[in-house]
């Protein structure tokens, strides 16, 4: 194993300029004796793997806090960040990967100075949620009560993921001071060794495909579901695949919605195959998230745009039996749906306005999973976002949980810096895990049970769940509780 070469400039805030000069002198003598094997090891306080929403938020949070702004930080992202930097679409087109941001996440994004860099005209707040049972028809309305309209009256904000990451990246670049390594993959992560310059045997050392080596006081895994950082730390991630796919698409509607532009509404209907949601975007646009079986997802993706639109309209209007039949058709759904709609009673204003078109190339699908890592921390390792947990999209909580992780980890690191603690030591990361783990676990459990509860046509179960929904709908106090949980401002459950 090569000896890491301590570059004095890498010691950052911890070393005064006097000592740095001294170290430089020492290094010169060291270098002359080891010219044969120059090492590329760079020492960082934090190396974050993954430049998605979680990773970029963490960097923006750390760089915008005066206590942590002097940490030496590197980001490694395997993809090029150029598409994020240059993301720009006309106001009539939207990326198909959107997320719901809770007011609590938006408050955090404002705190770290990122929200002002998001293209706000592409963000759609909504103030009402209509959720109903596709089998029994029982519904529950979530509207922001009048007395809470003053605080924004927003349940959540729909936003394109690329719009968010672009805002975050702009903020990170505005703050500066992060070594951004993009388009390079992490080839391996191993522990360092005991050298004349220090004992790195507890430090993760990452090697990229360009041969660069980075030693990390704290290695942050923001590297998604198949996190290499989690694998390095030997942390198991447990769970199951739902055998469902999420089908997403950008939809063009016949109007701005029943409540107009001022009062946008999100719709979700639970079908036995999974929930289908129509979430408002600016203007006459909506984003579709339809969770369904792999076969039906494949089928949806292969339909012509007119048949696809017809099937989406049917998903919010027709009975479960009609939908089953429509799925078996090779094509011609449009004709079939318009005939069946005339014979199915439904209240037009209780469901989304009619879909009139689908944005070309916007239909995509991805598998749905439940995963939760055994722990979020290890010695000099912390996991955030999807690397720590993956959840069903039915409650729109995945990205918000990641933002909650980031805020907690940034606070933990800040406390450590303020008190002279080594930010990478597991004991000093315990408060991050204790703040997030149980909270995430509880929310994921509720989401998972909701999916399972609604993925059945068993009459007994349907009857009981309808009673439950009806009861919840009548009790404003209980409804308010669920609403506040959904918008991330809720009571602490634990």
């Amino acid at each position: 194993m090569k000896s890491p070469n301590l570059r004095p400039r890498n010691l950052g805030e911890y070393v005064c300029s006097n000592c740095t000069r001294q170290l430089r002198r020492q290094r010169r003598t060291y270098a002359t004796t080891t010219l044969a094997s120059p090492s590329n090891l760079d020492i960082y306080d934090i190396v974050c793997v993954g430049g998605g929403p979680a990773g970029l938020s963490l960097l923006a949070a750390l760089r915008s806090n005066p206590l942590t702004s002097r940490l030496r930080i590197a980001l490694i992202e395997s993809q090029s960040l150029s598409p994020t930097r240059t993301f720009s679409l006309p106001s009539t087109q939207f990326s198909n990967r959107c997320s719901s941001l809770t007011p609590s996440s938006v408050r955090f994004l404002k705190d770290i100075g990122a929200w002002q860099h998001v293209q706000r005209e592409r963000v759609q707040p909504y103030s009402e949620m209509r959720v109903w049972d596709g089998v029994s028809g029982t519904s529950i309305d979530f509207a922001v009560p009048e007395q809470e309209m003053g605080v924004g009256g927003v349940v959540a904000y729909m936003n394109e993921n690329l719009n968010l990451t672009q805002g975050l990246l702009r903020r990170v670049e505005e703050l500066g001071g992060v070594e951004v390594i993009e388009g390079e993959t992490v080839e391996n992560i191993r522990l360092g060794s005991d050298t004349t310059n220090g004992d790195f045997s507890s430090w993760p050392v990452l090697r990229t495909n360009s041969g660069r080596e980075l030693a990390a006081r704290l290695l942050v895994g923001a590297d998604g579901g198949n996190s290499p950082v989690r694998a390095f730390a030997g942390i198991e991630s447990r769970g199951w695949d739902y055998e469902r796919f999420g089908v997403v698409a950008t939809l063009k509607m016949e109007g701005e919605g029943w409540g107009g532009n001022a009062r946008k509404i999100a719709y979700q209907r639970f079908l036995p195959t999974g929930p289908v949601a129509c979430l408002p975007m600016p203007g006459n646009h909506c984003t579709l998230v339809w969770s369904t079986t792999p076969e039906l997802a494949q089928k949806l993706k292969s339909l012509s745009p007119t048949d696809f639109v017809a099937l989406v309209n049917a998903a919010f209007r027709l009975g479960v039996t009609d939908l089953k039949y429509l799925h078996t058709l090779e094509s011609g759904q449009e004709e079939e749906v318009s005939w069946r709609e005339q014979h199915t009673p439904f209240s037009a204003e209780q469901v989304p306005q009619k879909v009139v078109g689908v944005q070309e190339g916007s239909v995509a699908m991805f598998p749905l999973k439940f995963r939760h890592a055994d722990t979020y921390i290890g010695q000099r390792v912390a996991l955030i976002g999807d690397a720590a947990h993956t959840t069903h999209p039915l409650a729109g909580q995945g990205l918000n949980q990641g933002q909650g992780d980031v805020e907690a980890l940034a606070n933990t690191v800040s406390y450590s810096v303020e008190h002279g603690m080594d930010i990478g030591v597991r004991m000093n990361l315990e408060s991050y895990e204790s703040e997030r783990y149980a909270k995430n676990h509880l929310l994921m459990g509720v989401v998972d049970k909701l999916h399972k509860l609604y993925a059945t046509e068993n009459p007994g179960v349907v009857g009981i769940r309808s009673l439950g929904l009806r009861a919840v709908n009548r009790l404003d106090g209980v409804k308010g509780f669920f609403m506040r949980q959904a918008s991330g401002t809720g009571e602490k459950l634990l």
Partner: protein
Amino acid sequence: MAPPIAPIRPTSLRNLNLLLRTAPRFVQNQFRNHNTSTSSTSSVNPTEVSHFNALASTWWDPHGSSRLLHLMNPLRHDFIRGCHASQPEPVAKEGLHYLDIGCGGGIFAESAARLGSTGSVTAIDPSPEILAVAKSHARQDPALASRLRYLNTSIEGLPKPASLGGQYDILSLFEVIEHITHPAEFLDQCTPFVRPGGWLIMSTIARTWTSWITTKLVAEDIVGIVPRGTHDWEKYINEDELKGHFSKKSGWNSPRVVGVVYVPGLGWKEVDGSEKVGNYFFGIRRDE
């Protein structure tokens, strides 16, 4: 997180007898005059040194016997900040020099060396085994090397500063004074190391029935989270005794006291008035 609770160990009659020998009884002021003619050359008690030598290997084990000290460490910095904030003139933002006496494995010394406001930390301990642990542990953080210096010595072995430049902004004695046989003499030895306007900061335990029950009976004997023999209750010092000591000596001002309590599940918390019954921080400033 709560500390790992060991199963309750049956207390044998012999142990009980040993324990009761340390039980509270009338002890006069810790700063009573002792025979100075036998003035030792060192403040260090050899029995204490051998006890802590034996603890060396577990000093940095986050679930070991020093866990409570690790958890307490951030409060030490909060207390020092409170002392600095009470000064009429603001404290320097950088270049502060620390002398940490009885540094043990270096929990406080390392953390002080990491602060942006620190110029240097000199940390001393009479136990060679513990100092070896401290030095080896500090190598795990390459940023410490240029700012942290460990010396295997007692305060008597450290050359007295010849000038103002050799004195320290902060002299710290964390969980030390209760292990010293002649505390008054020891504190006098420390004085010349504190620069005018600098602070002497310490933490220790009050000598009360409560502290006997928590540190001897519960911590050492019943639950066993602290090794037997770590504490000698009779050497504990109350905060009024410390204040009394310094008020008799000229050259000190602005004593500050904050009591802290360990709450299982929550960690260490500052609790007003608890300095009278258990662990507390004490800080005093040297006249300028």
